[in-house]
């Protein structure tokens, strides 16, 4: 029981660390990856809080699709830069 | 139970379905469908108004499960009146603005515009009818996204930037609103309005929970006032309304921001309880912010160099008027606020639908410099612009005057000395400023142009434009001359709220 409490506390602290780290990172790719790991931690917390529905959704959406959209956007922005240079 | 009670449900579900249908239809068909559908909705709303006026308010259970378990919607006189006026404005905005939509939009995206318009109708109506806080949140998000969509359909760089600004502020507002809803759920354990109010009556009596209740109410208020554009958060308005296509500008300025305020009033009356809200300090803060918005919005409108930006800043000032009404408080204050919602919605829609016509005969420029004599080149638009400007200034027989009168009456009825002086001072200063910039514009568009700026006069569809504008004019005059009818309706509606 107490082990669970410790585990949960560690996860919660990690959440805050991730949130602050995103704020302080200069590199956008790194920020997006930290955000994806933030979502994965959130997913574990949902399981600990007995909400499996939310865990599945968060894993598929928060870590999966939101993250992919962010990455695709980053890619698109770099492609734009590349186009600019060649023109 | 009569069949009429099902109409609120039909208005929402059919609007959602129309959104999906317009996604499938080609552009022109989508436009015709939307026009017919909006007219049909107007009739339904009129019918609901007639029923509620005779038989009183009713709640409608969405599904088999009653109050604390299932969703509910509610229709009373106030809701029906608001829905009716909103639908008429929507209809006229589509009728007057579709030519500009065709001009501003790519043809392959026209059906998407009408799909968004139908979804927005659904969101507006659900926010008006809702009896459930969380439903309010969901449809508030639809409203935010659809208004963003309506803004960006005109694909120029300015609208994209305006949309980013608009969305960021709106997301802050939505986040705060959701947090407020969650706090209220935590305190009361319910999401429907009536059960929450029951619990909140107990909580307000307990001095330990009162601060938490005040904080939750404040968070809800901040969220919704950011979204509607109260004074410190009004700076997104000029870009948003100034660059959007006319129909979107008219709808966003006269309906979307008003729907948020309507939801706020509904929450004050039906969730928290008006007597409890009046005891909180929120009321005075809203009064001060409202007055600040009135004055600062008008000053900024004075030195705009573009007619649409001027109208947008005047919208900010008018949002200030409405929040001042909420700040005055009491039945009279809220009546005045809601009356001003209607008056401003009717007037501002007209204003935003005339300015593009004036610009069209001035070389597609909205700058005052180029607009000289545009009222002579396009006489219809000039006349309608003058009418709406008179109403904004507050010239008797127009709606704006009746609204200002209501504010004065409410302040007198309230009786508190400093509030009375403040309100009257604000009304005087703001009316003067309004008069200054609107009269200047009217003289500007009617003074003879120089030889160098003379433009050719283009023919246009006159009947298709004049008939809807006449409808708006008649509504404006009706609100101005027979204000007691509307005031009576609002009064009845507010009494049904509590």
């Amino acid at each position: 029981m107490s082990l669970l409490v410790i585990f949960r506390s560690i996860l919660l602290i990690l959440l805050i660390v991730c949130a602050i780290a995103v704020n302080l990172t200069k590199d956008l790719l790194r920020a997006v990856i930290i955000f994806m790991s933030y979502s994965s931690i959130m997913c574990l917390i949902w399981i600990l809080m007995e909400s499996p529905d939310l865990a599945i959704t968060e894993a598929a959406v928060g870590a999966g699709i939101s993250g992919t959209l962010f990455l695709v956007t980053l890619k698109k922005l770099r492609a734009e830069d590349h186009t600019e240079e060649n023109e | 139970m009569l069949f009429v009670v099902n109409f609120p449900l039909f208005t929402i579900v059919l609007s959602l379905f129309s959104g999906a249908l317009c996604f499938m239809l080609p552009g022109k068909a989508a436009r015709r469908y939307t026009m017919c559908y909006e007219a049909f909705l107007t009739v339904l709303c009129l019918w609901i108004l007639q029923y509620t006026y005779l038989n009183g308010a009713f709640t409608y259970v969405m599904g088999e499960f009653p109050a604390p378990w299932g969703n509910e919607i509610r229709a009373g006189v106030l809701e029906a009146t608001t829905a009716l006026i909103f639908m008429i404005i929507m209809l006229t905005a589509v009728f007057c603005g579709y030519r500009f939509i065709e001009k501003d939009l790519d043809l392959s995206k026209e059906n998407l515009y009408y799909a968004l318009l139908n979804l927005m109708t659904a969101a507006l109506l659900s926010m008006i009818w809702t009896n459930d806080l969380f439903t309010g949140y969901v449809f508030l998000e639809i409203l935010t996204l659809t208004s963003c969509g309506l803004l960006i359909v005109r694909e120029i760089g300015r609208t994209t930037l305006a949309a980013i600004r608009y969305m960021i502020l709106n997301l802050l507002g939505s986040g705060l609103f959701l947090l407020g809803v969650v706090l209220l759920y935590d305190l009361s354990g319910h999401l429907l309005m009536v059960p929450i109010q029951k619990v909140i009556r107990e909580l307000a009596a307990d001095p330990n929970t009162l601060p938490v209740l005040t904080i939750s109410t404040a968070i809800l208020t901040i969220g919704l006032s950011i979204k509607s554009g109260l004074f410190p958060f009004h700076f997104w308005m000029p870009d948003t309304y100034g660059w959007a296509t006319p129909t979107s500008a008219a709808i966003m300025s006269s309906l979307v921001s008003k729907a948020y305020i309507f939801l706020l009033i509904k929450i004050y009356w039906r969730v928290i309880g008006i007597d409890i809200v009046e005891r909180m300090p929120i009321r005075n803060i809203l009064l001060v912010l409202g007055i600040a918005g009135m004055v600062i919005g008008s000053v900024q409108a004075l030195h705009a160099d573009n007619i649409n930006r001027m109208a947008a800043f005047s919208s900010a000032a008018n949002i200030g008027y409405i929040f001042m009404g909420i700040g005055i408080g009491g039945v009279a204050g809220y009546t005045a606020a809601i009356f001003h919602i209607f008056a401003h919605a009717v007037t501002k829609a007209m204003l935003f639908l005339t300015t593009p016509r004036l610009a069209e005969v001035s070389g597609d420029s909205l700058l005052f410099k180029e607009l000289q004599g545009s009222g002579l080149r396009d006489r219809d638009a000039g006349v309608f612009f003058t009418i709406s400007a008179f109403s904004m200034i507050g010239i008797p027989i127009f709606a704006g005057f009746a609204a200002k009168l209501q504010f004065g009456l409410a302040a007198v009825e309230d009786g508190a000395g400093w509030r009375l002086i403040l309100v009257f001072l604000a009304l005087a200063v703001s009316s003067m400023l309004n008069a200054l910039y609107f009269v200047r514009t009217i003289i500007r568009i009617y003074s003879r142009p120089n030889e160098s700026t003379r433009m050719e006069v283009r023919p246009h569809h006159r009947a298709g434009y004049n008939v809807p504008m006449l409808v708006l004019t008649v509504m404006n005059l009706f609100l101005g001359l027979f204000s007691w009818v509307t005031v009576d309706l609002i009064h009845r509606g507010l009494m049904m709220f509590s």
Partner: protein
Amino acid sequence: MKERFFKWFYGESDPMEHILDCAEVPDESREEWKYEEHEIEREISRRVHTQSVIRAERRGFYAFYLIIAVISCLMLIGVLLFTVSQLPRYGVENPRAKEVIERYVEKGLEETGAVNIVSGMILDYRAFDTLGESHVLFTALLCVMILLRLDEKNKRTRYENYYTVLADPYYDISTDPIMRIAATITLPSIFLFGIYILLNGQISPGGGFSGGAVMGAALIIYAAAFGFTVTDRVFTYRMSRCITFLSLAFYSFAKGYVFFTGANGIPNGVPKGTPGAVLSGGLILPLDIAVGMVVACTMFGFYSLFRRGSIGGE
């Protein structure tokens, strides 16, 4: 004074420009600000310079901004933390919420036929919210289509298109062996998992939205690994449009029918089925399928629009 008033009156200048330094109104009379289109482009290319100018001009302002940011953030957090400390305790049942939950838990199985109480709640008791929720997603799809779908106005030139593809090595790959083999191995199980949680929403965790999201993610992986040419063969724009429309229309009408009959006290005649079986929960299963279809199409649509500006093969 008089001159200045008339200048304002004729829209030529702003009388208060020296009093209130309004950033919103650029001074039009200055010739050097009237850029032509190509000059704007040059201006943009000089953005590094602009950046340094902004920094130098507004350094004090940013410091002020930062302080305000930190203070307002701390104040907000402080007020909210105070609120939290006054709220009911964590991990203990909130007695006020009991009335609602009792019905959901004790009668839920009987009234909705769903073993998963959350599914029963969102698709039966509070179905109106969920109806709105799926339309939020649809609205978002429309907005993204308006912004990113290529049309006559914002069609890329062939030249630009060429470089975009060149700069984006995963635009249409079919050569990366690691990606392809990994996708071949994992995709069937991801699809299967998606379909499983879609169909079992009423008896186990999951449901329309999560199932649809997993399937959408699978489609995204498929497109990323094998290229859009493969997905276009199966998944065209027309098909995605039809699926979205039919699912949403079915959803609106099914729910409208249930609301209508429920409110008027007419039995709706939807069989509840055996609790615990796949075919149970009345309308929950068909609605889950409809939502799942919409979500899968929308998610893949987002990805496809972001990558190349169209939903599927035309």
